[in-house]
């Protein structure tokens, strides 16, 4: 909404200035400065006037270098649509589509025509929200139900492909005996692959049939809050008889002892 307002404002200002006969200027980020043209990151190229001046926007003195890609600049046009002044700026300017009044100055050799791949409304999610990805930060809520045999003192984490599959990348908070939750802020459009773990890749989740799982996938859309509810069927190290321990434990616990830390001096079972 803010972007729309900004663009609308820029368009109105440009129209007013045109009506008043003032030179038209826009701001943006440069893509290239070459061959008598300056290009913006919209992909539009504008012809340079022979007497184009390059200034430092802050001091209004001639700039010490030529414009180059990634520079932010204010660009002023003459009535013929040529660029007469480029003011290089240290501070970033908003990057977006050009107002129509300036877009008409863009030079293209071929006649533009619509791209059928870009036509039609954007697809929607199952709840009717448009699948648009503007990159704005939105809240993403992960909620998971763990197997009932998960130890009550267990910590649950999320391992993701955006954190090198660090098995403790996102720590979750317990909300009851079987559920954990984590909330993160992510840019819409983010595609995240993830698995739940108990802190190591040896304790990552497994499917209900005991086999390893392909990572879960979440595409973050523009909704203010994205949420995902998952159920962990089992853990890689789960075993009903409790014999299994993490494989990093050495040596092997071969003789199950139901009370492994009895007081010193308490004897093990004796025949009567």
């Amino acid at each position, binding site marked *: 909404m803010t972007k729309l307002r900004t663009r609308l404002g820029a368009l109105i200002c440009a129209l007013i200035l045109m009506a008043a006969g003032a030179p038209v200027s826009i701001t943006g980020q440069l893509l290239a400065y*070459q061959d008598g043209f300056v290009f913006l990151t919209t992909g539009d190229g504008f012809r340079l006037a022979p007497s184009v001046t390059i200034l430092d926007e802050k001091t209004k003195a001639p700039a010490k270098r030529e414009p180059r890609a990634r520079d932010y600049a204010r660009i002023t046009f003459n009535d013929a649509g040529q660029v007469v002044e480029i003011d290089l700026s240290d501070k970033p300017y908003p990057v977006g589509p050009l107002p129509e009044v300036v877009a008409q100055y863009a030079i293209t050799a071929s006649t533009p025509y619509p791209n059928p791949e870009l036509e039609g409304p954007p697809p929607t999610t199952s709840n009717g929200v448009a699948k648009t990805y503007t990159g704005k930060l939105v809240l993403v809520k992960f909620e998971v139900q763990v197997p009932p045999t998960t130890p009550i003192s267990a910590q649950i984490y999320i391992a993701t492909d955006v954190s090198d599959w660090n098995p403790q990348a996102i720590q979750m908070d317990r909300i009851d005996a079987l559920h954990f939750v984590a909330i993160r802020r992510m840019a819409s459009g983010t595609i995240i692959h993830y698995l739940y773990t108990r802190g190591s890749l040896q304790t990552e989740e497994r499917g209900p049939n005991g086999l390893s799982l392909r990572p879960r996938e979440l595409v973050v859309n523009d909704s203010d809050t994205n949420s995902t509810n998952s159920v962990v069927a089992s853990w890689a190290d789960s075993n009903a008889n409790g014999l299994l321990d993490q494989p990093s434990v*050495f040596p092997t616990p071969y003789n199950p002892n139901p009370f492994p830390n009895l007081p010193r001096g308490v004897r093990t079972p004796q025949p009567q």
Partner: protein
Amino acid sequence: MLCAPASAQPSAAPKATPSPAPALPPTTLRLRADRIDFYYDRYLIEATGHVRVQTSNGMTIVGDTFSMDLRLNRFLIASNVHLRSRGGNIDGAAIADFLDFNRIYFVPVIQKPDRWTYENGDFLHPLKGRQMPGDVFYFPDVGRDRVSFDAKSALIESKHFARFSDVRAFLLGAIIPLPSFYVYFGVSQDLVENSLSGANYDTTWNATGNANSISAAHIRYDQFNHLYLGFEQHFAGNDPHEYAVFSVSPFTKDDRYWNLVTGEHIGSKFEIDSFSQLYTNQQFLAQPTASAETTYITMTQALHRSSVQTFLNQTYYNLIGPEAPYSLNHPSFGTLTWTSYNNEIFKSPLYLQTHFGLGFNHDSVNGLYNFGGYLYTTIWNQYADFTFSLPNVKIGNRNKAYAQYYLNASLDTQRQWYSIPHYVNTQNSTISLSRQYSRFVNSYLSYNVDNTSDIYRHAAYTPSIPNLPDGTPYTPFAAFHGAATLRTLTWATTYAASPNLVSTLSFIHHQDFPAAYPGLFTQPPLNAIGQYTYSNYLGQPPWQVSGEVRARLFPHLVLDLQRTYYFHFGSQIWSPSFVVQLST
């Protein structure tokens, strides 16, 4: 006045990009530039100065600046661009390649600028003038991001990895020159499976690698070994769950562990995993003075709504031979378990999961257990386990999300029979009630009872009275005859002020039998990073209050502060404990 054609619509808002092309093979880019910056937080490569890119699909592009978002799988080269392809040599202002979509967007400058789209690698027939997605030539804003490292060249395989050469890494203000650095950004975890034991601190240098392997050095710290080096080699196949990881650590200490972890998916319903560990005590690579080895093998077969798992372990405590002063015993154990799905019981909110299994333990050298005057070298066991659960029953006003309570309960009961004439019953039950008070505040109350009883048919735990640390006999323990009950009541509240700041306050009350007393029970063994190797044990303090604040200071740095007080534990009125943890 120069005018663009009236139909020009360059001001169109960014529109949806076309659907990705089906399963394109990965593209390889060879990038050279005066300076290549990598932003780990955002998986961005930004290069400037004499940029030269060669692609595996036959393009060579030079330009002044390069930008690639590894996650979006697209790159942009801008300013004084020269493209050499099957379509010839063309100069331009910018070129963007959307690799997932097999679309290349080009701004050629031949007398006048133009807009060309190369579709599906057809460089001979560019679509001239076709409208492009609105953001194809946008540079990412990295003004607030820190460069993780810079380099002079990079090999990038789309959707898999990037390998940089002539690297300068920036770590805590220091510049560390490295010959190379490897970054993996694939969606499968197989290539980064870990075979190293836990450590309190680990810095990894992924020295080199490709789509199927990574070679990494680790600088690590843990409280047993202190500072040491480790090495790890990863391999992964192209199919899911196909990997092998080898590691040696601590490489710079005499006590050394050589680990091998493998995984293999055979067919669609069978998986085999293994873990082997060789222990050596040796100076560098000299003849070891002590050596032991253990191997775990797990095989899982998926069945209709259930699975069967076989688990085998063999351990050799002395690989040196009889001349070494160590036991030659080599125990083994194995289990065969059938596990059902977690099945709904007659469309009720109740679920049941069932396990049945049998297993054995064997040690022919030292034997396993001396009982009734007989040394058992093999112990067989069978077990049955039933887990009932009741997840998420809503109570209260269903129209108000923040006025609802959620009831969860579970009961796990198991009996395990041994060929030594005894059996062990374990029963673990938990019930909890939780409520979300607002978007920020959540609270729950849970009660957990853990019963374990070790029952002998012809014998029993002999009543014995241990001494307290001060030598006084602890007579209440005389009532213990092999059955223990641990009861835990927990109340916890979490306040999540924002995703980056979460605080939790919890009260825990243990009421156990045998009752706890400070110093009476032996502490569970600790692993390398100082954690107890099992979590539910005899002797926990009866009253405990814990506070925790977790704050994300930077995108990859979390500060975790925990403070715990123990009350009325023997002669201790209160005993504070403080934990500060930094994690990534």
